[in-house]
């Protein structure tokens, strides 16, 4: 089954130059840059949920922002149905790709009522709609995300975190996009509410047939919602696979460490054995070879240079680890 991908991310890189002082410029000291994305390639099929996981600073949010148009990548390209995304006008792009943000407390303009917020989106993008039509559409959007339209004349502060995330989703869906980038949409929510939002996203995806890029650090959540998962570390994708493959047979040592670090909510399975030591290296000067080589329990000399290529271990399971290349050394699940 070959479905044409909706989005194709090809070798995208993004850096953030660090400001230099005038003296440094005069002294011709080298520029320092933060490599947020280093050659990321991914693709998204219609109707699927792609999970992107990684710890803080791995570049997963930068990737989401590149897709939504908040950042412009320097290298590589992002294709929308084979057309470069950079060729598409801002307004058109916003009708295709929308975004839900992490922080329900800062993602809504505190000075606009919910009705004003949704109305504005419709007003800007569908100028032909009458105000009555817009009012009806606002109500139906709110109902769609499980909120009572009776609340629409309130300001955001009157709502709880979960409700605000619903409003954010309604706002994003007002444009009927095909792709929703959800950047840590539930990480600020309590477990009970988190489940509500996850269910909502799931049902909306099914109902509207949209694709979701679900960015999160919580592996359990990603595992639950995603069809495929990409694991990121230090600006690179280290492993991608279908969800069950990845969680059932993780091949990259980082993925393994990550999985083993999740505290299992079962007192009978106590597995608090520390998988990896240390913390993320300085992203301003990442290791020249495998990004994980500074912490990897299986590190070898060969890991330290150059950056390992992707290895396709079959069934769309890609791993960026030299040990995966050597068939003699298969990693136990």
């Amino acid at each position, binding site marked *: 089954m070959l479905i044409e991908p909706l989005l194709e991310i090809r070798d995208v890189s993004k850096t953030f130059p660090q400001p230099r002082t005038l003296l440094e410029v005069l002294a011709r000291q080298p520029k320092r840059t933060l490599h947020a994305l280093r050659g990321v390639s991914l693709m998204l099929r219609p109707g699927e949920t792609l999970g992107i996981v990684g710890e803080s600073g791995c570049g997963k949010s930068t990737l989401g*922002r590149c897709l*939504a*148009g*908040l950042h412009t990548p320097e290298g590589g390209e992002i294709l929308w149905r084979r057309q470069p995304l950079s060729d598409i006008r*801002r*307004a*058109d*792009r*916003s*009708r295709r*790709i*929308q*975004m839900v*943000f*992490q*922080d329900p*407390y*800062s*993602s*809504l*303009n*505190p*000075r*606009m*009522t919910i009705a004003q917020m949704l109305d*504005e*989106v419709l007003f*800007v*993008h569908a100028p032909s709609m009458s105000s009555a039509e817009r009012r009806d559409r606002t109500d139906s959007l709110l109902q769609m995300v499980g909120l009572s339209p009776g609340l629409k*004349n*309130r*300001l*955001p*502060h*009157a709502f709880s975190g979960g409700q605000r995330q619903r409003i*954010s989703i309604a*706002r*994003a869906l007002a*444009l009927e996009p095909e792709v929703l980038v959800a950047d840590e949409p539930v990480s600020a929510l309590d477990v009970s509410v988190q489940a509500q939002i996850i269910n909502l996203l799931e049902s909306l995806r099914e109902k509207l047939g949209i694709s979701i890029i679900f960015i999160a650090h919580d592996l359990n959540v990603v595992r639950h919602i995603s069809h495929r998962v990409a694991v990121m570390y230090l600006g690179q994708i280290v492993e991608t696979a279908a969800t069950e493959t990845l969680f059932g047979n993780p091949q990259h040592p980082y993925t393994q460490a990550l999985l083993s670090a999740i505290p299992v909510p079962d007192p009978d399975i106590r597995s608090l054995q520390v998988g990896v030591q240390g913390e993320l290296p300085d992203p301003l000067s990442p290791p020249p070879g495998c990004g994980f080589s500074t912490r990897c329990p299986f590190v070898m000399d060969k890991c330290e240079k150059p950056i390992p290529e992707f290895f396709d271990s079959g069934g769309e399971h890609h791993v960026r680890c030299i040990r995966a290349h050597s068939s003699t050394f298969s990693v136990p699940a």
Partner: protein
Amino acid sequence: MISPVARERWIKFSRNLNLQLGLFMLGLLVFAIFVFPVLIAHDPLAVDFDSALIPPGADHWFGTDDLGRDVLARVAAAGLVDLQVVTVCVFVPFVIGSTIGLVSGYIGGVVDTLLMRLVDILWAFPFYVLVISIVGALGPSVGNMYLAFSMVVWISFARIVRGEVLLAKRQEYVQAAQVLGFSHIRIMARHVLPNVITPAIVFMMADVVLTILGVTSLGFLGLGIQPPTPEWGVMIAEGRNFILDGWWVSLFPGLAIVYVGITFTLLGDGLDDFLRPKG
């Protein structure tokens, strides 16, 4: 039916003692400025050497000055003058400075860098030095004073608003507006501006006090509003020579300035609370 937003505002206002008191005092001030002149029927400019330096009493509530002019009438007339000056010298720079700060902060890049360098440079000139140099070089007049103040004060507003814009730009609701494909003008006007302007408004209240102090200091140096136009600072400057024998001549305009100071400090604090969004 009252909208929930309006009701919330009303509740917020009803709990905001600073704002209520400040508005009350401002109302009283405006009332005094417009009603006293009618009520007391003394000409603030009428010179009468025979009734010079009469202490406060039944006929002259605040006494008379050395030229026999009624101090109350002059304080009230001066209030009008000062409020006009303040309105121009504060409001115009507020609009100009906020706009520049908003656009500069939002656009960023080279425009912002250049503009902020200019602001840095202008900022290095002490307020009084710049104003005195401008007024001194152009000659003392109300118009030149407006010009000098406007040239100097906008910097503060630009700095304040720009700083806030840089913070707001990082807020997710501004990013959401960008992702929603809104035009930059719309984002600036509807999403950024309402959320960054509060500190500028609050500073505007403080600036009223600073401006009155500036105007009066210029008057004291003989570079501000020129007599016989009544102005609080000039009145104090004129009255300070006989502060022992005619304390009322400079006391009442002094009190008027302090009154305005308290009024606008309360208004500033009150507006800060009132305009800050909840949550």
